[in-house]
C-alpha cells in the first residue's frame, strides 16, 4: 500500500514538473478556462503547506548524514516521504499560481520574480529528491541543497506576500508614513502636484511598477497616458467616456469599482478633481496658478496644496542629541527665553528680549546649546552685522528673525554656513539688494522677509523672479486698497457746557495733520476754512465744525461740536414729574451735570420721558439775573425720539409765585430727518429769579409715516442751560 502510494506520488511529481515546463514555455498563448480559475485562486490558500513541509524536510535533509541518524530507519524514511510530499505539494501550488497569474489582475516585475523563484523551488526540490540516493550525494551536497532551497523558498514567499499585501505590510504600523513632498501653490503643477498625489495615495499599492494590476501603472505621466490592459485611462475632454471615472463611480458592490472595496476610497473632492482634470483635456504641463481664479479645478486643488508657511514649520526628526537640561535652565533668564520645541524633542527655540541689556555675550553664552537651537528671535535687538558670525555657529538653525535689528547686510555671508536655514526675516533693517542677492544665490532658504528694507519694489520683483522657489515677501503692496481716512481731531474739553470764557485746544494723533474749522456753521473745507494754529478763545455759544486734512490721506468726517455757556447752576433741582426709570437700564441722569448725550442715545446720558411730560423745578439760594433758559434734546427717528411739542419757562421768587416767561415750539419732525441734537432756547427780559420751572410737553403719538406709528415717542433731554 505504502509503495503504491509512493510510486503514485513520484509519477505525479514527474507529470507536474512536465506540466509546469509546458506552462512556462507556452507562456501567454495558454488561456485558462473559466472553470479552472477557482483552482488558480486557491493558490494563496494552499501555499502555506508546502512552505512549512519543505522547511521541515530541508531540516531533516540537512542532518541526514549525521552519524547518529544514518542508522535510524524511521528518520530516513520519514525524511524521504516528507520531501516527496512537500515537493508534490509545491508543484501543485506552482501550477495553481501559474493559473492565477494568467488572470489580468496581476502583472509587473514583482510577479515575474515570484513566478521564477517559485518554479525554482519545485525544480530544486525535485532535483534533490531524485538525486538524494545517488552515490555522489554526500553530506556536503545535502547541506548545500537544503540551505539553497530554504533561501529560495523564503525569497519566493516574500515576493508572494508583497504581491498580496503590498509593500512593507509587516512594518507598516511602526514605520513612518512616506511623506508626500509638500508644494506651495505658487509652484504647484496640476498633474505632478495634484493629480499624481491622489494616485499615489489611493491607487499605487496595486498599480505600481512591480504589481501593475490590470497592466496599469500610475507612477508617472508616461504610464498614465499608456493606460492598462482594458484600454487608455481617459479620453481627454470627455469625463463620461473615461475608464478612470467610470471605474471610480461604479457602485461599491460592483466588482470593478475602484479602489477595491476594502481599500481606502477616494473622497468626493478627489473624484471631482479627477473629473475636472479630464474635462480640461487632462493637461500634464500646466501650473495650478495658470488656471483661472474661478476655475473649479484650481479652487479644489488649492485645498490640497500646502501654504508655504506650513512647509517652513514642517516637523522633522532632528539628528542631534538633546542639550543638557541644566544648561537650558541656566541660560533661561528674564531677558532670554530658551525653550524646548516639544516634549522629547532635542530642538530649542531662543528669544531675546530687552534691547537695553543685549550684547554679544548674550549670544556667546549660548555656546553649550549651539547645536540644538533651531529658532532664534532677535527682533528689535541691536544686532549688527558682526554678530551674524556668532549666529552662524548655531549650525542647526531653521528660522532666524532679525526684524528691526541694525543689520545692514554685510554679515549675511556668514549665514551661508547655516545649511538648514529655511526662514529669514529682515523686516525693518537697512539691508541692501547687493547683499541680499549675494546671500540668496545658492542658499537653502525658503522664505525671506524683506518688508521695510532698503530694497525698492523693483529690486524685490527682480529677486522674486530670479528665485521662484523662494517666497520673498516685500511687504504689502496694496496699502492703497485700505481706506486711509483720517479720524477727527481731539478737543481739550469733553463737555459742551462752559461757565466762563476759555481757550479751546485741538490736537490730532497723526503728525502733520492740518486741522481746519469754522465757527459760522459752514462746512470747513481744505482751503478757505480757518487753519488751527493756536487755541481758539470761546466766550459765547458757538457751533464748532472741524475736519482734519493731510496729504495722502482721505480727510476726516466733519465733527460738529456745540459749546454752550451756562452761567448758573441751581442749588437744587427736583423733577415734578419723573422720567422713565428703565430706558437706559438705570436711573435717569441729572439735567445739570454738564454731561451731554451723543447721537448714541444708549450711553445713559439722556433722561427719557414717555408717559410724563418733563417738568423740573430749580431753586437758587440767592436770586440770579437770568435772561435765557435753554433745554437740550435729541431727535432720533430710528429710536422713536422726538422733540417736545412745546417748551415753557416759568419763573418767580418761589414755587408758588411763578409766571410764564416764554415758550419755544420746535419744528415738527419730517420723514427721513437725520438725528439732531438741538438747544431749545427761550429768551426773556433779564430779571432776578430764585425759582425756575421748566416744562416740556411730549407728543403723544408717533406720526403716521413712522414705522412705529401709534406708539408714544420718547422725549430725550440731557441738560438745562441758564444764563
Amino acid at each position, binding site marked *: 500500500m505504502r509503495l503504491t502510494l509512493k510510486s503514485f506520488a513520484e509519477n505525479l511529481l514527474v507529470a507536474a514538473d512536465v506540466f509546469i515546463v509546458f506552462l512556462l514555455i507556452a507562456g501567454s498563448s495558454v488561456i485558462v478556462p473559466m472553470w479552472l480559475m477557482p483552482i488558480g485562486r486557491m493558490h494563496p490558500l494552499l501555499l502555506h503547506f508546502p512552505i512549512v513541509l519543505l522547511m521541515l524536510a530541508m531540516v531533516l535533509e540537512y542532518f541526514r548524514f549525521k552519524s547518529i541518524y544514518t542508522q535510524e530507519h524511521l528518520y530516513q524514511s520519514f525524511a524521504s516521504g516528507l520531501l516527496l510530499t512537500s515537493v508534490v505539494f509545491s508543484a501543485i501550488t506552482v501550477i495553481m499560481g501559474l493559473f492565477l497569474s494568467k488572470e489580468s489582475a496581476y502583472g509587473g516585475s514583482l510577479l515575474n520574480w515570484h513566478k521564477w523563484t517559485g518554479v525554482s523551488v519545485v525544480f530544486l526540490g525535485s532535483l534533490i529528491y531524485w538525486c538524494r540516493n545517488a552515490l555522489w550525494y554526500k553530506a556536503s551536497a545535502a547541506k548545500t541543497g537544503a540551505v539553497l532551497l530554504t533561501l529560495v523558498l523564503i525569497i519566493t514567499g516574500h515576493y508572494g506576500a508583497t504581491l498580496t499585501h503590498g509593500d512593507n505590510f509587516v512594518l507598516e504600523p511602526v514605520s513612518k508614513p512616506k511623506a508626500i513632498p509638500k508644494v506651495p*501653490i505658487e509652484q504647484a503643477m496640476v498633474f505632478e502636484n495634484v493629480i499624481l498625489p491622489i494616485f499615489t495615495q489611493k491607487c499605487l499599492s496595486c498599480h505600481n511598477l512591480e504589481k501593475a494590476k490590470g497592466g496599469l501603472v500610475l507612477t508617472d505621466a508616461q504610464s498614465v497616458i499608456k493606460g492598462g490592459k482594458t484600454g487608455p485611462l481617459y479620453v481627454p475632454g470627455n469625463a463620461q467616456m473615461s475608464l478612470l471615472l467610470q471605474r471610480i463611480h461604479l457602485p461599491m458592490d460592483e466588482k470593478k469599482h475602484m479602489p477595491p472595496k476594502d481599500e481606502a476610497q477616494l473622497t468626493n473632492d478627489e473624484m471631482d478633481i479627477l473629473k475636472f482634470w479630464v474635462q480640461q483635456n487632462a493637461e500634464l504641463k500646466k501650473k495650478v496658478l495658470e488656471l483661472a*481664479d*474661478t476655475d473649479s479645478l*484650481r*479652487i479644489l486643488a*488649492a*485645498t490640497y496644496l*500646502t*501654504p508655504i*508657511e*506650513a512647509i517652513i*514649520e514642517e*516637523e522633522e526628526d532632528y539628528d542631534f542629541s538633546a542639550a543638557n537640561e541644566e544648561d537650558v535652565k541656566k541660560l533661561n533668564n*528674564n*531677558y532670554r*527665553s530658551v*525653550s*524646548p*520645541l*516639544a*516634549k522629547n*524633542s532635542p*530642538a530649542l527655540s531662543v*528669544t531675546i*528680549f*530687552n534691547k537695553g541689556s543685549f550684547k554679544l555675550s548674550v549670544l556667546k553664552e549660548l555656546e553649550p546649546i549651539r547645536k540644538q537651537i533651531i529658532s532664534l528671535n532677535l*527682533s*528689535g535687538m541691536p544686532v549688527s552685522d558682526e554678530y551674524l558670525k556668532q549666529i552662524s555657529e548655531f549650525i542647526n538653525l531653521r528660522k532666524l*528673525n532679525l*526684524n528691526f535689528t541694525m543689520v545692514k547686510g554685510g554679515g549675511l555671508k556668514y549665514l551661508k554656513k547655516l545649511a538648514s536655514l529655511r*526662514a529669514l*526675516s529682515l*523686516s525693518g533693517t537697512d539691508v541692501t539688494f547687493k547683499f541680499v542677492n549675494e546671500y540668496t544665490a545658492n542658499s537653502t532658504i525658503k*522664505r525671506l*522677509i524683506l*518688508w*521695510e528694507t532698503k530694497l525698492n519694489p523693483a529690486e524685490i520683483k527682480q529677486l522674486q523672479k530670479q528665485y521662484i522657489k523662494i517666497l520673498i*515677501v516685500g*511687504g*504689502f503692496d*496694496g*496699502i492703497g*486698497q*485700505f*481706506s*486711509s*481716512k*483720517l*479720524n477727527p481731531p*481731539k478737543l481739550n474739553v469733553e463737555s459742551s457746557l462752559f461757565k466762563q470764557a476759555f481757550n479751546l485746544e485741538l490736537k490730532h*494723533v*497723526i503728525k502733520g495733520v492740518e486741522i481746519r474749522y469754522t465757527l459760522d456753521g459752514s462746512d470747513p473745507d481744505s482751503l478757505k476754512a480757518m487753519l488751527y494754529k493756536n487755541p481758539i478763545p470761546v466766550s459765547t455759544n458757538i457751533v464748532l465744525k472741524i475736519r482734519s486734512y493731510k496729504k*495722502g*490721506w482721505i480727510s*476726516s468726517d466733519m465733527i460738529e461740536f456745540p459749546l454752550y455757556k451756562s452761567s448758573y447752576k441751581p442749588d437744587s433741582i427736583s423733577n415734578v414729574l419723573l422720567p422713565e426709570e428703565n430706558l437706559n437700564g438705570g436711573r435717569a441722569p441729572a439735567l445739570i451735570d454738564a454731561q451731554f448725550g451723543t447721537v*448714541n442715545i*444708549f450711553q445713559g446720558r439722556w433722561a427719557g420721558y414717555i408717559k410724563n411730560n418733563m417738568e423740573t423745578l430749580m431753586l437758587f439760594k440767592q436770586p440770579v439775573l437770568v435772561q435765557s433758559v435753554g433745554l437740550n434734546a435729541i431727535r432720533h427717528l*430710528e429710536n422713536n425720539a422726538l422733540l417736545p411739542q412745546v417748551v415753557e419757562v416759568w419763573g418767580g421768587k418761589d414755587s408758588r409765585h411763578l409766571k410764564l416767561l416764554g415758550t419755544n415750539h420746535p419744528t415738527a419732525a419730517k420723514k427721513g430727518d437725520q438725528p439732531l441734537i438741538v438747544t431749545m432756547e427761550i429768551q426773556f427780559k433779564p430779571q432776578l429769579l430764585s425759582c425756575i420751572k421748566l416744562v416740556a410737553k411730549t407728543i403723544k403719538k408717533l406720526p403716521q409715516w413712522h*414705522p*412705529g406709528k401709534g406708539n408714544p415717542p420718547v422725549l430725550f433731554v440731557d441738560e438745562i442751560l441758564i444764563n
Partner: protein
Amino acid sequence: MEKNFLEHGLNFNRRRFLSKLSLGLGSVALGSLLIPDLFTSAMDEAGLPPGIPDFAPKAKRVIYLFQNGAPSQLESFDYKPKLREMMGQELPASVRAGQRLTGMTANQASFPLVGSFYDFKQYGQSRAWISDLFPHTAKVVDDICIIRSMHTEAINHDPALTFFQTGAQQGNRPSMGAWLSYGLGSENKNLPAFTVLLSRGKGNGQGVYSKLWTNGFLDSTHQGVQFSAGEDPVLYLKDPDGLNRFERRKMLDKLAEMNSISYKEFGDPEINAKVQQYEMAYRMQTAVPEITDVSKEPDDIIKMYGSDCLVPGTFSANCLLARKLSENGVRFVQLYHQGWDQHGNLPNEMAGQAKDVDQASAALITDLKQRGLLDETLVIWGGEFGRTNYSQGAMTKENYGRDHHPRCFSIWMAGGGIKPGVYGETDEFGYNVIKDPVHVHDFQATVLHQLGLNHEKLIFKHLGRRYRLTDVSGKVIKDIIA
C-alpha cells in the same frame, strides 16, 4: 500652636504614605495596564504645570479678536440667498425642529425669515462668500479659514461667552488664555502671558467682565492682565510720586523675604505666585511703556490699521497693540469688541460695527504676514453664537433684528498652521449645520493643538477631579490644519 502645625503636617504625610503604600502600588500597577499612557501624562499628581508643548507646535501665540455680542453670520460670512427669496415667509417648523428660543422672541407670534440687507460676493482662492460689510477681510481671504459650521450650547450672552472662554457655562473655570499660560508658560518674562484689551462699538452692546479672563482654580499668575486705554495702560504699575526704582527694588526684596518666611510656615502656593507677580510688575514697569508707545510706527502701518489706531481704546488701536504684545512674546492676547448684539436696527448697527473692526482685522493679518510672524501667530475672529434667520420684532427690508442662535455661526482663523479656505456648511435657511459641524470644544481642542498641546492631557486636578478646557469632549479639526 507651632506644635499643632507640625503635628498636622506629620499626620498628613503619614496618612498619605500609608494610603500610597497599600492601595497606591497595586493601583498604579493595574492602572498602567489599563491605561498605557498613565505615566506619560502631561502632569504629575502634584499638578505641576507642564510648561512644554506635547508636540512641536505650529503656533506660538494667539490673538483672539472676540466680537462680543455675537455678530450675525447671515450678514457676514454665511451667504443664504434663499432667505432673500423667502423674505417675510414663516420659518418652517421642520427647520426649527424644536430649537428653544430666548425670552426675547419666545412670545413672538410669527418668525418671518429675513435675508441679508447686504450683498455678498465671492473672493479668493476658496471663492468664499463675504458680505459687502467686510471689504478688507475679503482682501485677505486667502489667508483665513472661514468656519461656517460653528455651534454652541448656550443661548444667552453670559453663559455662551463663558463657555467659549472656559469650556463650561458656569464661571469657575480657567479661561483659554490662562490654560495656555499654564500649559506653555510665558515666553517673555517681562510681560504677562495673557493680556486683555477692550473696545466698544456704537452698536447695542453686552458687558464683559473679568470672569472671562480668570485663572479659575489655576495659579493666579495665569490670570489675564487687562491693558486699558488711559494714560496708565496697566493700572497701578507706575511708582507713586516720590518713590524711585531703587527704593522700589529694596521694598520688593524685603517683601519677598517676608513672603518666603510665610511660605515656609504655611506652604500656600499662592504666596509664591504673589512674589512672582510683584517681580513681573517690576519688570513690566520698563517693558510696558516701550510696547504701548506707537509713535514709531511707520505711516504705512497707521494707514493700514486706519488712523483710529492712534486713538487708544479703539478696536483698531487694540489690534495694533495686540500685534506689538504678540511680537514681544505675549502668548495670548484677548481682544473684546463690544456692540454686536443686533436685536433690532441690524443693518444700520452692523454696518457701524463692521466698519470698526474690518480694516484693522485685515491689517493685523497683513502686518503679521509681512513680518514673517503669521505662521507662528494664530489669529481668531468671531463671537459667542450666531443670530436667527428670522426677524426679531417689526421687519422691513431695510430694518430688522435678529435674536440669538446657537445652532450655527461663522468664525474665522488665520495663521498658526491653519489652512486657509472655507470649512463646514449650513442648510439653505442658515439655521442648522449640515456638514462638518464644529462644536466649541472642538474649536478649543484645535486651538490647543496648534499650540502643541493635547487637550486631553492639559489637565488640572481640583476639588478631587481633573479638569480640562474641553471638559469631557472635543476633537481636533484635522481638516483645517495645514
